[in-house]
Structure formats: C-alpha cells, structure tokens
C-alpha cells in the first residue's frame, strides 16, 4: 500500500541544505502496522511529514513515495487534499496543539465529518457521538459540548483519534501519540488504536522512541538512525533476532522492569543526525565492530535472516556472537 524508495530529504536551514533523510526505504502492506523507532534526529517525524508532504518550505525531496501505486510526490493540490483528507490520517503527539481550542469538541468532530465525508449537520452530530463511543468515551452528549481545555490529555488524544477515524482513512500515521501521556493512560490509548485499526483493517505507521511499545503494537519494526532505516524485523521476536549493532545497543540500553542489571550495555557517544553522517555507515563512530570499510563506504539495506539490515559486518558479527 505504501512504498518509499531511496527517499532523500534536505531542509533549508539558514540558506544551506541540510539532509534529514538519506536513502530511506520503507514498505507497508495493506492493514499492516509498522513501528518506526529511533532517537532524536533519526528522522522518524520527517518520514511522516514526507509521506503527507507537510515538509517546511524550501525542502528538497528525492526518490519516490507511492501510495496504492500513485506517486505522492507528484500529486497536484486537489489530489493531495483528497489524499490527506481521506486516505491518510495523522495522530500527533500533542493533541492540544492540533485541536482548535476555541471550538467545542462537537464542532471539531463535525467539521471532520462534513468537510471530508460530506454528511449533513444532524447526521454529523449522530456520527460524532458514535465516533466518541468507538474510542471509549461514553458520555458523548456532554463531551461534544465541552471545549478542549476541559478534557484531560488522554481524553483529548482519544478525540484526536476519533477525528482521524471520521475520514475512514486506510492508513494512520501515529507520531508519538502517547509520549505525553501517563503510562496507564498510554496503555488505554494504545489499546484503542490497536483495536480500531484491526477492526477496520487500516494500515498504521507507529512512531515512537520506545522500542518495547512498538513491539507490542506493531507487526514489524523499522529502526532508524541518522535519517535511514538500519534494520527491519518482525516485532514478535526482535529481542532475539536483532542483528544490527545499533538495534542490539538500543535493546541493551533500556533498564528492565523485571530484573536489575549491574550495568547497562550503553552505546558510547551520542546519536548523530543525518547531516553529521559521513560517507560511510552513520553508526560507525559509536560501533564497537566498525572497520575501515564502515567508515568509508555506506552499507546498503539488505536481507539477512528474515529481516533487513544495513551493516557491512552483520554476518561476521552474528557468527562471532553465535560461536
């Protein structure tokens, strides 16, 4: 359904072009949930903005973004509006920034229905109540009359999800949708997203810095570093099957709630952004396995053991680990 090939994106930062995505490849099947995981500057959010063509002015985009075989990068304004209005829906991290604070919840949802689906006012009101019920808000009558500031962050994120559902999209792009929420509320909101996307067979790109959360919600996970995907694996067993040194490093960096480790296997240094990456592997400066070839030649994203890995030495490293 969604296919990104060799996507390069550079932003205009004070007159200089600064790369944020480099040779990005991604595939999403109909109804599939794909997690995009990475640290700051890895390009997760830029990927969403590239797919929806919501990049800042002056951005330069190369490669191809296809949705259902249609070239998103070549869409003309009317086609792009239709694509954004009914094919994809975006759930952002901060619903308070995305929802007009001066409109009642009912007006906000009603607008999503009348503009995108062309339904009448009375019908819109009925459908808005239904949508709220589908995201677990039961006293719809009262909620529809309330203003955003009267709702908690968790409630407002449910309203945001309801508004995305209003357009009945085939693809949901969720950009850190629960990062600002308390963990018990996160569990509820993620549960709602997961149930709805399965019921409605929607595809989902779920962006998060929390690898374990992505593994719980997604079918496959793509790990990003410095503007590229470095590994793609099935979410089911990533803890055992991770092969890229960065993915393994990320798994070792998180303390466990189940047992206390003496020390964490921390990755040295700090995450680099795409514009700081040299000609070789972007992770080479932090990688214990890096050799000369890693510093000079950029590895390709290639198939390795039922997944994709961008690493020159993955075979050697794996053999060494198994031996």
């Amino acid at each position, binding site marked *: 359904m969604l296919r990104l090939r060799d996507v390069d994106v550079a932003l205009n930062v004070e007159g200089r072009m600064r790369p944020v995505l480099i040779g990005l490849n991604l595939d999403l099947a109909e109804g599939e949930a794909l997690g995009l995981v990475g*640290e*700051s500057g890895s390009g997760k959010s830029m990927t969403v903005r590239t797919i929806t063509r919501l990049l800042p002015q002056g951005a330069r985009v190369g490669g191809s973004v296809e949705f259902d075989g249609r070239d998103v990068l070549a869409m003309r304004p009317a086609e792009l509006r239709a694509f954004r209005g009914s094919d994809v829906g975006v759930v952002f991290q901060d619903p308070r920034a995305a929802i007009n604070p001066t409109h009642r919840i009912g007006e906000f949802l009603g607008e999503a229905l009348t503009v995108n689906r062309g339904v009448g006012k009375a019908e819109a009101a009925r459908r808005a109540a239904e949508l709220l019920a589908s995201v*677990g808000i*039961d006293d719809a009558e009262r909620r529809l009359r309330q203003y955003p500031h009267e709702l908690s962050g968790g409630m407002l994120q449910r309203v945001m999800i309801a508004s995305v559902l209003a357009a009945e999209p085939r693809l949901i792009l969720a950009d850190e949708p629960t990062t600002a929420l*308390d*963990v*018990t*509320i*996160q*569990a*509820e909101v*993620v*549960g*709602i*997203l*997961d*149930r709805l996307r*399965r019921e409605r067979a929607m595809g989902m790109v779920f962006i998060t*810095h*929390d*690898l*374990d*959360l992505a*593994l*719980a*919600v997604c079918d496959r996970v793509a790990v990003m570093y410095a503007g590229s995907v470095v590994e793609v694996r099935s979410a089911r067993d990533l*803890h055992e099957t991770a092969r890229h040194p960065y993915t393994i*490093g*990320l798994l*070792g*960096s*998180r*303390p*466990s*709630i*189940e*047992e*206390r*480790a*003496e*020390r*964490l*296997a*921390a*990755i*040295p240094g*700090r*995450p680099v952004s795409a514009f700081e990456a040299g000609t070789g592997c972007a992770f080479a400066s932090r990688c214990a396995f890096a050799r000369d070839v890693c510093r000079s030649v950029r590895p390709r994203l290639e198939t390795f053991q039922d997944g994709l890995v961008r690493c020159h030495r993955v075979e050697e490293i794996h053999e060494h680990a198994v031996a």
Partner: protein
Amino acid sequence: MLSPEPDTQSDAQSDTRSDTRSDTQTETRSGAQSGGSEPPAITVSGLTKVFRVADERGRRSQFTAVSDVSFTVPAGGSLGLVGESGSGKTTTARMLVGLEAPTAGRVEVLGHDRSRPARGAAERRRRARELQIVFQDPYTSLDPSQTVRVAIDEVLRTHSGLEGTARAARLAELLDQVGFDERQASARPRELSGGQRQRVAIARALAADPRVLILDEAVSALDVSIQAQILNLLVDIRAATGIAYLLISHDLAVVRHLCDSVVVLRRGQVVESGDCGAVLDAPADEYTRVLRASVPVPGWRPNRSAA
C-alpha cells in the same frame, strides 16, 4: 486482586504491609552501614500540602496535593518516589528542597529539620552541602554564558572550602567523573547536547559534596542511549561516594535500576511502599498492579478491550 471491602480497609492492609517492608529495608540498610549510627538521609513524616484554589467563578476551595506522606531514605540508600500526573511527587520534591512550605508534617535531612526556611547564610550553605537536586530540564538550569568548567567551579568556590591546586584537582576529578574532556569542558551550554547538559547539572550538584541527591525526573527527557550512560554514571557515583539518592520518576524500569526501595504515590497519598524488587514483582496494591501492568515489556500486548 480487587478487594471487595471498602477503601479504608484495603488502605489499612497495604499500610501494614508497607510498614513491615520498610522495617526490613531499614534493618538491612543500617546493617550495611558502619554501625548504623549515621542519621537517615531523608526522613519525611506526615508531610501534607493543601493549596487554596479558586474556580473560574471565584469560588474558593482547598486542594490537597500531598496527604500525610511518610518515608525514609536510609544513609547511603536509594529510594524511588513514583507516580503519575497529580500523584503529588513534584510537590513533595518542592517541599523537600524548600521551594514550597508544608501545610503539615516534617522533613529532616541528615537529622536536621527542614520544615522551616533556613535562617542565615551559614545554614543555607550547610543545607546545600547536605542535599542537592537535579531537575528534568538541564537547559533552563545552566547559565548560557558560562563554560562547563566555570559553571562547576562556581559551586566549588561557594561550597567546597577548597582553594588553589586542591580546588583545581577536585574540578578535574568531577569533570572526569561525568566524562568531560578538556575541549568539552570549555564548551558553553548551547554547544552541548541534552545528555551533556544533564551531566553538567549532575557535576554541579556533586561539587557541593552533598550526602543526598534528589533526581527529579533527571533522566526522563534523554534519548535512550544517553539515558543508559547517565544511569551507569549514577550507579558508579553512588558506589564510589556512598551518596544517597531520592529518585522522583514515572519510569518504573529506571526506578528498579537505581533504587533499593520504592514509594508509590497516587492522588497525594502513599498507596504502597517497600523493597523495590518486591513491590514491582508482586504489587500488593491494586493501583500499583495497574501501573506495573501498563508498562510495555517484551511480550506485553495492549488491552484491546480497553474502553
């Protein structure tokens, strides 16, 4: 296990349990310390904060942010204060460092009462040497014009009593402890990453040579790989200096990694406390159980029936 009894009863139950646990905790701890003669790092008893609030129509009411909270951080110990929004953990921290006056209750640091503001510069200096705090946001707590070296040396000048080469040696030691080389030590805050700034904030806190360090969501905003480095650093520092930690966090995995004991807060009240591993492995309180079960871990699945 949901108790069919009224709330008061289950509260009483968990209180009894938590008392037993904290007693065991204190014994093991003081046994490990030299003779157990050192006073606890922090003793909080009956701490309460009531705010007077007014609604949009100007009607006044009272809001209890922290209600009868008690806990002890043993000398050299490490305690995690966990809770979600509105749990009262931030208000508790603010009372501990004197940014907020308690409505009732008592705060003692190293056996000295802190329920009243410090009287005079000498007492303020003593308090600073007893306890320091590192906040979540290192961006706002550093002077943009100061280099790393100057920012840390400023604290040494005020609090260490060291001069000349001794102070220079201590400065070099601190820089080394938090992993700054010569070049980085000459950098200003805007040239540093979030993790580096947080390490400056930690070095500044340590420069006062405190016996107790409060970490208020101090690693929460950091990238995972940087967070791991800072957590290792905090473990090393405690092992090397015997400093006590009070960690305020919403992240149960971080609490488990750094803390011996834990206090779970909800709506300003302690719902459960005790040995960190014991509480997280077998929560006795229903809320702690929900909190624990909400954390995504390998094999965790979202609750699809969630309403």
